[in-house]
């Protein structure tokens, strides 16, 4: 009994240590957002903002186009999430549930596409979108992000689908539904956790991406938050306080999104483990 208690204390201490080490840089970012200028560059370091100020946050929010950037980032991220879920679900269905000529080739292809460095494609993609009149438009960025998000989401959703027992599908078809009906009614809810997980992935990719957005979006009203963050650095130095405040604000929606969906993940975990 004592041994397991000691073990528990030991494990909890370890957990706290892991938590502390992992979270410190994030803490540093948030704390710096609340520090006054003289506390940011100081020696010894100011560990906790004992004289907190929200001036960095107000500075950040009042910078030009903050709210426009928020709106643009949200529009792009939500669009990418919704579209990728639909398109990836359909494609994953194809490669998970059907046998057809070229299936393995398609799978290898989507793995290979992930290996292509994005930086090599900046100018060619810009050329293609420019010809299609999609430069400086959110739709151009959305389509680009979709391209980079789809391979991974298709591959992952396929895995989830493979995990669903065949009998469930077949059982529902005995009831007289069409094959597609079986997909929607049976498969869709069961790969719910998979959809949630891939939507998180798509959201983060779309939310944090910089270089394609920088090249594709020109007007300041069309900027995303990551581009907006870049304006804190001039050739005259980086405004650290407002930058960290802006960064905290940028990270916030992702965290909120997580909080909303993390229950679904946990539910999905336990649901998946129970097999009838």
């Amino acid at each position, binding site marked *: 009994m004592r041994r397991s208690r000691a073990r528990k204390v030991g494990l909890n201490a370890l957990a706290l240590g892991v938590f502390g080490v992992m979270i410190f840089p994030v803490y540093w970012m948030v704390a710096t957002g609340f520090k*006054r*200028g*003289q506390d*940011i*560059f*100081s*020696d010894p370091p100011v560990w906790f903002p004992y004289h907190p100020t929200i001036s960095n946050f107000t500075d950040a929010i009042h910078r*030009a186009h903050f*709210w*426009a950037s*928020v*709106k643009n980032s*949200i529009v792009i991220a939500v669009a990418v999430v919704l579209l990728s879920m639909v398109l990836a679900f359909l494609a994953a269905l194809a490669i998970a549930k059907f046998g057809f000529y070229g299936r393995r080739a398609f799978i290898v292809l989507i793995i290979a596409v992930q290996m292509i460095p994005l930086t090599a494609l*900046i*100018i060619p993609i*810009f*050329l293609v979108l*420019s*010809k299609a009149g999609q*430069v400086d*438009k*959110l739709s151009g960025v959305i389509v680009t992000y979709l391209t980079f998000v789809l391979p991974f989401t298709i591959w992952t959703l396929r895995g989830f689908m493979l995990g669903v027992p065949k009998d469930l599908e077949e059982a529902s078809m005995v009831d007289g539904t069409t094959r597609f009906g079986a997909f929607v009614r049976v498969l869709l809810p069961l790969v719910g956790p998979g959809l949630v997980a891939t939507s998180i992935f798509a959201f983060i990719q779309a939310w944090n991406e910089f*270089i394609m957005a*920088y*090249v594709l979006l*020109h*007007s*300041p*009203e*069309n900027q995303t938050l990551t581009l907006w963050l*870049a*304006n804190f*650095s*001039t*050739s*005259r*130095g*980086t*405004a*650290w*306080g*407002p930058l960290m405040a802006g960064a905290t604000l940028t990270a916030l*929606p992702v965290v*909120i*999104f997580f*909080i*909303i969906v993390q*229950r679904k993940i946990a539910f999905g975990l336990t649901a998946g483990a129970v097999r009838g």
Partner: protein
Amino acid sequence: MKARITAAVVLAVALAVAASTASGSTRQSTRKAAANEVVVWVMTDAQNGWPGALTAANNAFKAQHPGVDVNLQLQSWDSLLQKFDAALAAGSAPDVIELGNTQTTKYMAAGALSAIKAANYPNSKTWLAGLKSSCSYNGKLYCVPYYAGARAVIYRKDMYAAVGAKKAPTTYSQFLSTGTKLMKKFGKNPNFSAFYEPGQNWYVMMTFVKDWGGDIAVPQNGKWKAVFDSPKAVQALTAYKSMALKLSRATKTNDEAHPYPSIPFAKSRAAAFIGNGWEWPYVFDPKGGAAPKSFAAKMGAYPMPSHIKGRFMPTFLGGSDLAIPISAQHKSLGADWIKAFTGTASQKIIAKAGNIANTTTLANVNKNNPALAPFAKAAKYSWFIPTAPNWVNVEKANVLKAMGTALLTNKGSVKSVAHKYSQQVTKILNAKS
């Protein structure tokens, strides 16, 4: 469950606010480059440093072209050229672009900028020679000087006085001896530098080379040859190395922007440093040094004295130019905007913000400002980078910065380091473009 609801509510509220406040801009974001618009790319520096000049220019432009919108798109130095290259590739360049004066030659040589006539622009007869040369290629003019920056030494009068230097040094040997005394008196503090010189501050390194009569690179038989391994240059580099190692505790692997010396200076970690005029107000900027106003009483500035009596070391004339890309949609509108922004009204504001205006007629704008006057004075002797088309590739490859580090971290004798990096520069300058 509660957290989830709270989070959802927060997100919904944020979304609602964002959507409502941003709805006004959707109108603008769907507009295309219409005939009633001029697209301008300038750096965030302008918005952050001299926004009044931008406003003045926009007002003047709008007065001249009432139906035309100014589509101002702020850029960052890091990725500007990437974006510009992409725009050029697609044939959709802006109407006005700001380029660093070390970047222009490459684009002029590639035919990316359209030729212009000086006479059409304000104050062209009195443009700064250094800037004008960065706009000239093969006898033609391809851009308009925007502003320049000269470097001088900013120092702590009280620390200098504490070691007996009541006036600023006027010779190089005075500079050295004062520095040595400062290190003796304050050097016990491991963070203290008598002269804060980051290892990759190649502008100062090359200033020494120029002062000793050396050069960076010269044209030779239709090619370029880097010559900072010449005997004079090696002499200069040796002097630079010994000065930096004796008087500075700044990082050897980074440059004068990481951090800006104003910041350690504001924390009394440096008695002096070489910087641009705007580094002075940066000492007090809450985002920079965050020093109290009273700190100003302890500060002074002087042009870096040369090792040749009666002169200053020539300062690197940094700066920016404004150009009209060859594939711009509205070249004449772009030209008019440039005229407004480089006119006397805007230039005056730019100069008062701590820069050097593009025309010598405004050279004395800061004469009575003790903070900025020495910088204008220092611009009397200046140097510029070799006007080779591939020069900007040398900068992008960080060759001279790497050389500074190698020099100060003893990666070989001064001569061998100079020779190794000269060869690299020669290779890049002569690469097929």
